[in-house]
C-alpha cells in the first residue's frame, strides 16, 4: 500500500512579507518555508492510516525551487514519512495551480499510489486548485474538505468524513482516490528530535527539471501570470479607548459604534 502526500512550501506565518524589486513576486530573502497548514493535516492523516495498516509506505512530494521543496520534505520525513520526492520548478514558471498539478502529477505517476492526500488549499494563495487538478490528471476520483479518513474493512476502501454546510457527510470510497484534507480531527504531531536529526541526512529523490518543464508545457498557454504582488495598505484609524472600569469601557465603545462608526442606529 502506497500513500502519496502533496506538500506545498509556504512562508512561515511569522515571516514579514514584502514584494521583490519587480513588484510581481514575494521577496524570498529571509523567508522561512514551512509546509502549508492543511498539508500538515494531510501528512498526519497519512501517518495515522499507515499506523493502522502495517506495510504501508508514505511518500511526500513537493514542488517549488529545490531548496524550498526539500526543506518541507525534510520536515515531512522528520514527522515520519518514509520517502520524499522533490519536483523542481522550472525557473520562470508562473505560480499557477495547473502548472503545479502537472508537475506533481508527473512525479506521483512515477510512484504509483493507491491514495493521494493533500491539503484542501494552501495558506498563501488559498486557490485550492492543485488537489482536484492532480486528481483529474491522474484520472482519480477526488474527495475534498475531508476531516477524517479511515480504512473501511481493509485497505481497499476508505471511509471519509467531509465537512459540508451545517455538518458532516460520510462517504465510502474504493481506492484509488485523491482526498484533500481540511483540519485533521486530531492535531498534527510534533517531530521528535532524533527524527529531525535523521531527516537532515535522508535521501530525497529529485525529478529532473527538464522532465518537469515538459510535463507543464501542454498547459503553457493557459497558465495565469501574476501581474503584481503588493502588501495591503497599512491599516489606520485604530482608536484606543481610555476608561475607568469595564462598564465605562463598554458604554464608550457602544457610543462610538453608534455615533461615530454608525454600525447600528
Amino acid at each position, binding site marked *: 500500500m502506497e500513500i502519496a502526500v502533496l506538500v506545498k512550501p509556504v512562508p512561515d506565518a511569522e515571516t514579514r512579507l514584502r514584494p521583490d524589486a519587480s513588484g510581481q513576486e514575494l521577496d524570498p530573502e529571509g523567508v522561512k518555508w514551512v509546509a502549508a497548514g492543511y498539508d500538515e493535516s494531510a501528512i498526519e492523516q497519512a501517518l495515522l492510516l499507515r499506523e493502522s495498516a502495517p506495510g504501508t509506505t508514505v511518500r511526500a512530494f513537493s514542488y517549488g525551487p529545490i531548496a524550498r521543496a526539500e*526543506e518541507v520534505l525534510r520536515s515531512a520525513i522528520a514527522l515520519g514519512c518514509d520517502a520524499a520526492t522533490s519536483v523542481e520548478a522550472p525557473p520562470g514558471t508562473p505560480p499557477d495551480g495547473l502548472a503545479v498539478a502537472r508537475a506533481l502529477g508527473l512525479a506521483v505517476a512515477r510512484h504509483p499510489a493507491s491514495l493521494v492526500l493533500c491539503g484542501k488549499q494552501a495558506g498563501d494563495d488559498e486557490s485550492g486548485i492543485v488537489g482536484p487538478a492532480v486528481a483529474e490528471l491522474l484520472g482519480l476520483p477526488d474527495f475534498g474538505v475531508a476531516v477524517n479518513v479511515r480504512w473501511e474493512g481493509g485497505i481497499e476502501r476508505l471511509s471519509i468524513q467531509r465537512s459540508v454546510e451545517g455538518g458532516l457527510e460520510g462517504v465510502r470510497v474504493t481506492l484509488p482516490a485523491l482526498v484533500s484534507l481540511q483540519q485533521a480531527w486530531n492535531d498534527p504531531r*510534533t*517531530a521528535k528530535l532524533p527524527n529531525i536529526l535523521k531527516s537532515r541526512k535522508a535521501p530525497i529523490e529529485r525529478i529532473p527539471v527538464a522532465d518537469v518543464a515538459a510535463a507543464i508545457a501542454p498547459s503553457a498557454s493557459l497558465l495565469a501570470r501574476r501581474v503584481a504582488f503588493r502588501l495591503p495598505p497599512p491599516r489606520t484609524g485604530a482608536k484606543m479607548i481610555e476608561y475607568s472600569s469595564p462598564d465605562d469601557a463598554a458604554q464608550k465603545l457602544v457610543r462610538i459604534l453608534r455615533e461615530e462608526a454608525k454600525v447600528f442606529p
Partner: protein
Amino acid sequence: MVDFSLTGEQASLRDMARKFARTEMAPHAAECDRTNRFPEEIYRKAWELGLMNLNVPTEYGGTGLSLFDQCLIVEELGRACAGMTTSIIANCLALEPIILGGTEEQKTRLLGSFCASYNLASFCLTEPSGGSDAGSLKTRARRDGDHYVLDGEKCFITNAPFASLYTVFATLDPSLRHKGIVAFAVPRDTEGVTPGKEEEKMGHRASATSTVRFEGARVPVANRLGKEDEGFSVAMRTLDQTRTPIGALATGIAQAALDHAAEYSQRRVTFGKPISEHQAIQIKLADMAQALNAARLLTWQAAWTIDQGERGSLESSMAKCFASDAAMMVADEAIQVFGGYGYMKEYPVEKLLRDAKLTQIYEGSNEIQRIVIARELLQRLS
C-alpha cells in the same frame, strides 16, 4: 573564518524547541508559577520528543547533541518558562557524572533506562552548610564490604521529589578535602534515602526542589562513579559541561523580557504617542538588546570552545555569569518599561525577574564564576 549562521539542522532543532516551548510550555507557565505545580505531563512530553537527556551519547540511546546545539534548544525552552526548563535539563546535569566518570557497564546500565523511558535524575552536590565550597561537603561515605554506606543531607536538589536516581557526592574523610570526595549513582528506592518536602521558591516554581537525606544508605561499589579520589574532579568537570546551558537559559529569559517590553512599548501610549517613540524607552530597549546579544554570543562561544574538546572553564564561566546578570538587568528594565503593570502578576514580566535571579545563584554562584574567570585569566598571563 568566524560564521554565526546556523546550519539547516541547527535551525530545525531550534524551531522544534521553539514550537514545543510555545505550544506546550508557555500556556501553562503562569499557572504553574502561581500554584507551584510540577507539570509532569509537560516533562513527559518533552521526554517523548527527545528534549531531555540531550547530552547522553547516541550509543547509550541518547541524542548526543553538541553543547552548541543543546544551548540552542535550552534558550528556546527558557524563553517560555525558566522553571520548566530547569526541570527538563536537570537530567543532563544529573547524568553528566555518569557520562564523565562511569564505566561502560555503568553507562549502559544507568543511562539506558533514562533514554528508554521517562525517568528523572537529580544531581546532589549542595548541602545545607554550603554549595560553592564543595570541597568541604559533609555527607559521609563509609566502605563496608562491597558497599558504601552514605549518611548526610543534600539540599536545593532539583527534581528530587520525582527522581528515580540521584548522583551523589560524599566524602570518605573530610580532612582529605577535595581528595576525599567520591561520586555515586544512588537509586531512589535504596533504603535510607528520603527526599524532603518541596521548597516554596521565589521563582522557577514549575520546578520541584527539595532536600535528600541519606541515613545508612547502602550503595553497591558497582555504583561508584570513577575512583575513590575522583569525585571532586567529576563534579567540577560536570559543571564545566552544564554551566554553559545555564547561560543559554538566562539568554532565553532575557529574550522573553525584551520581546515583552518591545511589544508593549509599541502599544502603550503616553503624551500622545507610543512610549517606544520616547527616547527614554528607546535607550532602555537598546541597552537590553545589547546585553541580550552579548549574552548569546558569549554562550555560543563557550559552547563552541567546549565542542572543540577544550575544558572551557573560562568561557563557560563568562557565559553563565554574564548571561545571568544580563537576564536580571533585562527583566528589571522590562518591568520598568511596563511601569505599574510590570509589577502586577497579571503581566508576564515580574516572573522573569524572579526566574532570572536564580540563574545568578545556581550551578555555581556568579561570585564563584568571577573567581574562576580571574584565576584562569591570571594563570594564562603568568
